[in-house]
C-alpha cells in the first residue's frame, strides 16, 4: 500500500506543481522556479526511495487497478498504478533528469519572458511521462502517450514566433500521429479480443490469443504479431526509429534543456519502455522481433553516419540520440529487453549531460550553434570541458564508464549468439560514434578561439548551470558499474520483464562479473574500434585540418547524400507533403465543397431551418390553443389505448 501511495505522490506532485503555476499570479522567476523545483524534488525523493526499496527486494510489485473511470454494462475502463522494478527505475530516471533540467533551466531561461509557461509545460511533461510509466493498462498508456506528445509539441514550439520552431513542432506532431494511429489500432485490437485493457488480463490471456488469427479479406494473419507490430509502430515514432525518425533532429528548435529532458533522456525512450513492458507479447511474436532488430541496426548505424556530417552541435547530438535509440531497439529485437532498459538508463544520464553541456557552450557562444565557428573553449569553461569529456567517454563506451557496460553488453550479445553481421555493423557504429563525439570535443574545446570569448572572473556561468552538469556527470561515470552486478544481473527485472532466464545464461557463460567483463573488453574489437575512432578523430580534427577538406571535396556527393539522410529528408519534406496537398485539394474541391457542403450539410440544414420556422408557429401564445392542444393530446392517447 505504501508503494501505491508513494507512486501516487510521485505521479501527482508535478501535476500539482503545474496547476499551482497556472493559477499563480506572481510571475516572478524565482518564485515560479522554486515551486516547480519543489514539486519535482518531492517526486524525485519518493522515486529514489522506491528505487532503493526495489534494489533490496525487487520482487515486490504493487498493482492497483480499482479506480473505475467509466463503466457501462459490458464496458469497464479503469485507471490504476503498476509499481514494479521497471516502472520504479523509469520513474527514477525521469524524475532525476527532470530535477536537474529544472535547476539548469533557471540559468538557461533566465531572461525569457515566458519562463512561467516553460515551467508549466515541463512540469506537465513530467507528469505525463509518469502516467505512461505507472500505467497498468493500455488506456492510461495511450492517454500518457498523447499527453507527452502534446507537451513535446508545445515545448518544441516554445518560441512560437520563430517560423522554424513552428515548422519543427508541426513535423514532430504529424509524425507522431502516424505512430499513434498504429498504437491506437493495436490497443483497439486488444480490446476487441479480450474486452479489457488491463496489462495483467492481457498477459494472462496471451496463451489463448496466440492461436487466434484475424482475417482481412482472404488473407489471414496471426493476431499477436499484428498487435505487436502495430504497437511497435507507435514505439518507433516516439523513439525516432527509421523510417519515422526525421522529426527528432528538427525538434532541436526547442530550448536546449528541453532537448536534454524530452528529446534525449525521457520521452523518446517511451517506445523502448513500452516494448519492454509488453515483453510477454513480444516474446510470442516471432517475426516482429526480426523486423525490430533490422530497424534497430539500420537506425544505429545509418544515423551515426548522418551525425558525422552535421555541423550544428545540437543536431549532431540529436542524431547520436537516434543512433543510440537504435542500439536499444537492437537489444529489444534480440529480445534482451533488460539490456535495452539498462542502456536507456545510462544513456539518459550521459546524453542529458551532453545536451546540457551543449547548452552551456551555446549560451557562452551567444547562441551560435555551429561547431565550425567555435574553438578553444577549454580554458574558458573548464567545468563544461571536463563534464563533456565524461559524457563523451560514456557515450563512446570507454571501459568502466556507464555507457560501456550497457552498450558493449548489447554488442557482445551478437558475438555470443554468433550473429557476426550485426556484430560487425554495430562495431562500426562504435567507430562512427567515437569520431563524431570527439569531433565536437576537439573542435569546440581546442584550436583557436574563433569567437573571441573571454575568460571571466566568474568561472563559467552561475551555479545553477554548473550543478546539473556535475550532478549528471557522476551517474554517467558510476551508475553502469554500480548497477551492473547488483541490479541488472541480480534479477532486478525478473518480476517485470520476461528475459531473466536468458540473462542468467549470458551472465554465467559470458559476462561472469563486471570486472572480468571490463578486463576482457580491452581485448575485443569493440575497444579496437573505439581506439581507432579516437585516433582518427584526433588526426582529423586536432592535428591536421587539411585532410577533412580534401576528403570533403572528393566525397562531396556521398556527403550530401548522407546529409539528406539517404533521401528521407526529401521524402518527409517534399514528397509526402506534395502528395497530401494534391489529395486534400482534390477532396476539398470535389468532395467536400461540391457534394458534402452544398448538397448534404447545407441542404439538410436549410430544410430543417424552414421546417423549424413553420413549426414554431404552433406556439401561438393563445391560452385556449394551449388548452385545446392538451385536450387533443389526452383524447388521442385515450382513443389509442381504448380497448373497444
Amino acid at each position, binding site marked *: 500500500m505504501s508503494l501505491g501511495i508513494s507512486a501516487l505522490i510521485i505521479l501527482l506532485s508535478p501535476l500539482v506543481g503545474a496547476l499551482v503555476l497556472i493559477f499563480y499570479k506572481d510571475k516572478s522567476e524565482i518564485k515560479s522556479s522554486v515551486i516547480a523545483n519543489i514539486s519535482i524534488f518531492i517526486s524525485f525523493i519518493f522515486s529514489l526511495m522506491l528505487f532503493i526499496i526495489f534494489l533490496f527486494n525487487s520482487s515486490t510489485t504493487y498493482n492497483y487497478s480499482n479506480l473505475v473511470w467509466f463503466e457501462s454494462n459490458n464496458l469497464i475502463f479503469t485507471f490504476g498504478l503498476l509499481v514494479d522494478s521497471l516502472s520504479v527505475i523509469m520513474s527514477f530516471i525521469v524524475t532525476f533528469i527532470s530535477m536537474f533540467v529544472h535547476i539548469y533551466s533557471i540559468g538557461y531561461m533566465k531572461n525569457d519572458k515566458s519562463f512561467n509557461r516553460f515551467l508549466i509545460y515541463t512540469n506537465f511533461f513530467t507528469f505525463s511521462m509518469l502516467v505512461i510509466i505507472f500505467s497498468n493498462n493500455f488506456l492510461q498508456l495511450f492517454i500518457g502517450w498523447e499527453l507527452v506528445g502534446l507537451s513535446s509539441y508545445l515545448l518544441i514550439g516554445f518560441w512560437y514566433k520563430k517560423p522554424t520552431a513552428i515548422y519543427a513542432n508541426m513535423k514532430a506532431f504529424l509524425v507522431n500521429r502516424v505512430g499513434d494511429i498504429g498504437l491506437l489500432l493495436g490497443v483497439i485490437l486488444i480490446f476487441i479480443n479480450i474486452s479489457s485493457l488491463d496489462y495483467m488480463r492481457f498477459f494472462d490471456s496471451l496463451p489463448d490469443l496466440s492461436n487466434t488469427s484475424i482475417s482481412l479479406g482472404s488473407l489471414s494473419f496471426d493476431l499477436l504479431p499484428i498487435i505487436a507490430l502495430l504497437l511497435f509502430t507507435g514505439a518507433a515514432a516516439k523513439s525516432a526509429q527509421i523510417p519515422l525518425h526525421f522529426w527528432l533532429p528538427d525538434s532541436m528548435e526547442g530550448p536546449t534543456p528541453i532537448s536534454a529532458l524530452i528529446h534525449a533522456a525521457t520521452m523518446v525512450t517511451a517506445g523502448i519502455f513500452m516494448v519492454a513492458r509488453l515483453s510477454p507479447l513480444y516474446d510470442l511474436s516471432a517475426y516482429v522481433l526480426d523486423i525490430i532488430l533490422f530497424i534497430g541496426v539500420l537506425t544505429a548505424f545509418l544515423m551515426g553516419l548522418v551525425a558525422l556530417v552535421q555541423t550544428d552541435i545540437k543536431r549532431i547530438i540529436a542524431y547520436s540520440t537516434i543512433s543510440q535509440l537504435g542500439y536499444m531497439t537492437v537489444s529489444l529485437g534480440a529480445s534482451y529487453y533488460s539490456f535495452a532498459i539498462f542502456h536507456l538508463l545510462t544513456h539518459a544520464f550521459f546524453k542529458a549531460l551532453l545536451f546540457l553541456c551543449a547548452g552551456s557552450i551555446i549560451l557562452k557562444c551567444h547562441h551560435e550553434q555551429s561547431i565550425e565557428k567555435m574553438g578553444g573553449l577549454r580554458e574558458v569553461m573548464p567545468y563544461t570541458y571536463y563534464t563533456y569529456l565524461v559524457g563523451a567517454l560514456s557515450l563512446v563506451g570507454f571501459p568502466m564508464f556507464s555507457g560501456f557496460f550497457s552498450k558493449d553488453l548489447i554488442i557482445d550479445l551478437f558475438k555470443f549468439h554468433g550473429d557476426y553481421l550485426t556484430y560487425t555493423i554495430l562495431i562500426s557504429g562504435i567507430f562512427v560514434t567515437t569520431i563524431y563525439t570527439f569531433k565536437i570535443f576537439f573542435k569546440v574545446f581546442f584550436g583557436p578561439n574563433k569567437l573571441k570569448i573571454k575568460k571571466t572572473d566568474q568561472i563559467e556561468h552561475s551555479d545553477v548551470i554548473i550543478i546539473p552538469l556535475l550532478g549528471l556527470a557522476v551517474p554517467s561515470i558510476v551508475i553502469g558499474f554500480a548497477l551492473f552486478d547488483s541490479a541488472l544481473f541480480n534479477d532486478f527485472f525478473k518480476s517485470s520483464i520476461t528475459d531473466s532466464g536468458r540473462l542468467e545464461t549470458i551472465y554465467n557463460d559470458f559476462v561472469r562479473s563486471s570486472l572480468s567483463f571490463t578486463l576482457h573488453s580491452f581485448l575485443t574489437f569493440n575497444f579496437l574500434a573505439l581506439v581507432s575512432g579516437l585516433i582518427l578523430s584526433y588526426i582529423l580534427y586536432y592535428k591536421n585540418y587539411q585532410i577533412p577538406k580534401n576528403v570533403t571535396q572528393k566525397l562531396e556527393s556521398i556527403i550530401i547524400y548522407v546529409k539528406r539522410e539517404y533521401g528521407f529528408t526529401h521524402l518527409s519534406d517534399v514528397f509526402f507533403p506534395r502528395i497530401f496537398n494534391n489529395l486534400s485539394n482534390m477532396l476539398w474541391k470535389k468532395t467536400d465543397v461540391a457534394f458534402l457542403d452544398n448538397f448534404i450539410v447545407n441542404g439538410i440544414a436549410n430544410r430543417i431551418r424552414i421546417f423549424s420556422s413553420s413549426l414554431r408557429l404552433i406556439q401561438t401564445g393563445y391560452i385556449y390553443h394551449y388548452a*385545446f392542444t392538451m385536450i387533443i393530446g389526452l383524447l388521442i392517447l*385515450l382513443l389509442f389505448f*381504448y380497448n373497444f
Partner: protein
Amino acid sequence: MNIEIYVFYFFSVLLLFSAANVVLSNNAVKSAIHLVFSFFFSAVLWLILNAEFLSVILILVYVGAVMVLFLFVVMMLDVNITALKEGFVKYFSSGLAVFLSMAILLIFFFQRDFDESDKNILVEINVISDDNTENLGYVLYTEYLLAFEIAAVILLLGIISAITLTHRKSSVTKYQNPSEQIDVKKEERIKILSDEDLK
C-alpha cells in the same frame, strides 16, 4: 332507494343545465349566479351520498363566501363579455367534436366497467359512528393528519402569495412622514446661492 334515484337524476340534470349556463351565458353576473346554483345542486348530490358535512361546507364556503367575492369582482371590473366570446363560433364545431368524443368515451367506459363494480370500494366509511361529520373529523386528525397539515401549509403559501403579488409599495403614492417633518433643519429647507453659483 327508488326515490334517491329520482332525486339524483333530477338534481344532476339541473346541475348540468346550470353548469352549461355558466359557460354559455352572455352576462357575467348571470354566469356567476348559475355557478352558485351549480354548487348548490352538487351539494344536494353529496347529501344523497351521505356526505352531509361536505355538502354543508360546500354551501357555506363556496356559495356563502367565495361566490359573493366573485360577484363583487365581476361588478367592479365590468368585464366586456362580448370580447371574450370572440371566436366562439370559429371554435365551436371543433370544440363540440372533442366534447362529444370525450363524453362518448367516458360513457362507454362507465357503462362497461362500473356496472357492478360498486362492491370493489372496500373502504369502510363508518369508522367510529354513523355520523359522517364525526367520522370525517376522526379520520382527518388521525390517518390523514399529515395531509391536513400540508393543506394548512398550502393555505399559508396562498396567503403569502396573495400578499406578495398585490401588496407593493408604490413610488407614486404621496404620503407624509411626520417625524421627518419635525426633524427637518433650517439648512435643509433653504439653500443659499452665492454669486458664483449663479454664474
